[in-house]
């Protein structure tokens, strides 16, 4: 049961409170309070981060910076205003419901470190750097997330923001397969970014959600693809490779066999949508 509620205003104050109380940080509460009620999290201390003085979402050094407390809806608005990468908008608009997007935050999503986290997938695709305070260090998302629910943080540390690359001239495809069309957690998801040059791959990033303990992305495999001709054969090869790399589980949403099939088919589907007849 919650007995202590704090409203720190500065980074140091927040850090100290977190260190002393080991309390849970609370911004939107869309995940925290669900888990508290379900008894998955048991804490007596909640630290409300919404009173921290932050600047809001901004572009700096050609990167998109999403600070703590920025909500999905604020991010969508920013993307629209500044005409940024549409794939990010494609991903964010599938998260939860309008009510959830009004409260929930990207920083909260990556801190939960769920392999089904849609913003976690986006962070992998855009080579996110996680800004951690009070140490002011930046670590890549793949080093920040250790395993499902486990993140790389000291007790006095917290995530202050996420820095995403701003990419132009990339083709993209995102799909989230769930049990229905809205308010779902993915059974499997795929995000692909491709930059092409003369029908050859100049850069490619492929990430999958919900098919491994963390987001599945293989940068070594991606590197071997640079310079390759974009054709069906290549994507069939990729479909098989990623199917081998995936290690899904069976849960209440779907079986691992179905997820394995989806990994394969979603790669082909992405190809069909990006380079063949596009019907969405």
């Amino acid at each position, binding site marked *: 049961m919650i007995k202590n509620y704090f409203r720190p205003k500065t980074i140091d104050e927040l850090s100290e409170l977190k260190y002393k109380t080991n309390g849970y940080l609370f911004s939107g509460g869309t995940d925290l309070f669900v888990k508290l009620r379900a008894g998955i999290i048991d804490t007596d201390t909640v630290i409300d981060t919404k009173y921290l003085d932050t600047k809001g979402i901004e572009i700096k050094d050609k990167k998109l910076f999403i600070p703590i407390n920025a909500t999905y809806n604020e991010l969508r608005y920013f993307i629209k205003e500044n005409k940024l990468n549409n794939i990010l908008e494609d991903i964010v608009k599938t998260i939860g419901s309008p009510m959830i997007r009004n409260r929930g935050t990207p920083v909260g999503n990556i801190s939960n470190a769920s392999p089904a986290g849609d913003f976690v997938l986006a962070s992998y695709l855009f080579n996110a750097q996680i800004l951690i305070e009070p140490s002011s260090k930046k670590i890549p998302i793949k080093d920040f997330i250790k395993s499902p629910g486990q993140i790389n943080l000291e007790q006095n540390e917290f995530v202050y923001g996420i820095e995403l690359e701003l990419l132009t001239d990339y083709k993209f495809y995102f799909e989230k397969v769930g*049990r229905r069309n*809205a308010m779902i*957690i993915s059974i499997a998801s795929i995000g692909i970014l491709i930059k092409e040059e003369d029908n050859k791959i100049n850069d490619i990033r492929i990430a999958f959600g919900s098919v491994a303990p963390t987001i599945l992305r293989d940068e070594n495999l991606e590197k071997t693809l640079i310079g390759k001709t974009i054709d069906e054969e290549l994507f069939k090869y990729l479909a098989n490779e990623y199917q081998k790399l995936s290690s899904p589980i069976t849960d*209440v949403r779907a*079986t691992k066999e179905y997820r394995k099939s*989806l990994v394969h*088919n979603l790669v082909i589907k992405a190809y*069909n949508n990006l380079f063949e007849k596009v*019907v969405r």
Partner: protein
Amino acid sequence: MKEVTRKIPKKDALGLLLGKPVYTDDLAPKNSLIVKLLRSPHAFAKIKNIDISEASKIEGVECILTYKDVPRNPITRAGQGYPEPSPHDWYILDEYVRYVGDEVAIVAGKDEKCVNEALKKIKVEYEIFEPVLDFEKAEGHPSIIHPEKETHPMFEIGFDAQKNIAASYEMEIGSVEEELKKCDVVISERFYTQAQAHVAFEPHTAASYIDMHGRLIIISSTQVPFHVRRIIAEAFDIPIKNIRVIKPRIGGGFGGKQAVHGEPFVAAVTLKTGKPAKIVYTRQEVFEATYSRHPMRYDITLGASKDGKLKVIDMKGLSDTGAYGEHALTTFMVAGSKTLPLYNKVDAVRFSGKVVYTNKVPAGAYRGYGAIQGNFALESAIDMLAEKLGMDPIEFRKKNMIREGETSPIFKIMGEGREGVDMIVRSCKLNECVEEGMKLINWKEKFPRKKISETKYRGVGMAIAMQGSGIANIDMGAAVLKLNDDGSFNLLIGATDLGTGSDTILAQIAAEVLNVPTEDIIVYSSDTDLTPFDVGAYASSTTYVSGNAVKRAAEKMRKLIIKEGALKLGLDESNVDFDGKYIYEKNGSKKVSLKELATVLLYTENQKQLIADASYVGEESPPPFMAGFAEVEVDIETGKVKLINYIAVVDCGVTINPNLARIQVEGGLVQGIGMALFEDVKYSPNGKLLTNNLMHYKIPSRADIGNIIVKFVESYEPTGPFGAKSVAEIGIDTPPAAIANAIYNAVGVRIKTLPITPEKVLMSLNNK
């Protein structure tokens, strides 16, 4: 008609929208003790010992009751006609727990906090048994779920507790085996349906207190207040006269509240402590410990001649009633009685099978009540047979389906829990429904499929359905009309508006007879002290059964007004008429307004209260019919099915209020679509329901149900009030089969186990 067919909003709509305090939890006494239940973590166990000593010491805890503290009378929670066709196999509390969620102890205290604390401190020792979790292995399983000798049926229902059989049934007309030999084409297929949850917005809620006379008053979110009164009396050995049940506004029931759930537990606390008590089920409790739909398995054999005449239907079923046998036999029989008459020209028909106990969440009533399970199996099989015959599935249906003025031997043989009633279908526009639906979905253009891209296919599919209008010769509804001094009327009805709008349409029926505006009819439902008896809101009965009672009561009231008006005017009754405003001389100028007559009757002249009552029992149960058409788009890379259009063309006779009839059909369709595509039910290996919240149990969202078009064909049921039949359930029946047929037509994959998840579609495509 002036009032009937008026599209007026529900009488309670504004109050509900404004958030007025009208539900059970709002009306429970403010000083109610909070009641919660300790529930079993085991699927099947015997309580060896319960230690409540530590829990009782917690401050604020008022009482903790175990099976040792409450009467042990076998009852059924099912609110049905009496004697009930459900076995009496349930006890307020028992030393056996038969599913994860079964009640172990009742805890009452001053607030939620102390009660929750106490729940944690009760120590229970269990002797754990091997549970029966697979309904196909329940019969003859070494674990006997109801070993106790007190459990019994009230009459012969094929009950055999020693074999875990709650009910069984068999009937045959003609010789299935002989006729099958004569058929040119025969198919045999097996289908499964799942334990769908109702997901009413308002969770099950009950409150109780003792009034100044020492009577037990229960406020309950129930579809069946009069049955609740009878069942509670039986469970606690107290006279019916000492119980009053009040039904306030209800936030949906769909069959899930056609039973007692929280009522016995608050009653136990109030009877023990003398204090008010209330229970509000959590969403998890609603999923885990109320009711679900009966999961069923059907083996269907159909036989036809080359020219497309359906000659034989054989349906062999197995139904899973969970830990208790509520509605076990009746839902099972309805799977036959509300599907088989659709094809009334067969030479032989058989329906047989068993309803078994398992250590799972009990099954009970749910909109469709067996008909949807049977419809999925039969209407899927009909498409498969038509394909084998090389016939268009619609042509095949038209050749074989029931028409107006025809009958079916099923009506007489199969009722609900007993024999049915012979009847001729006086109104049946099924053919018109099919024709209209074909036009609206553009069947000729779209059947069977269209390729949208290399990976997406669209297909259309359809199914026909029937339901009933109450249970003939069993369901009774009564109404009382009372004239007030301003010329308005109180309409007192036992019929239970649970969000359907039945209060409104019953007022419209009374207003039509009296030729007054519906706004002058003040409706009150339902209260066992104040309103006349009605079996309650189930079996699509209210419009037809209660509606006929209201119509009769209004006709009597009209006669009374004419009689008293004639006296007032000094004329002979035969020379007087009533137009809704005035009682007037037919061939003259004398008249008196209804308002004036009403006032003098109460205060000055010939003083009396005008009151009229009537009861109605259907001698038949005229079926509403419909044709449902689905258009789906299947993504063969993910197996996802997108429902593009769903067309429902319905014959429910005259729609008393077309808007309210439409939302009944729309709501039914959405639940049917949910059962068809989304609502998956999963258990852990040790018998705990995993899909016990709205995160894991997916009902369709608005983005999932595509475009829904509901159309009513012109129809008139001569025995119904102003030509009406009931409409509550018919909308739910067709989506599972119509969508399954559409998916097959789109991509050639036949899914025979509900729900049709993307996973099943993709895996079937992979195996093709």
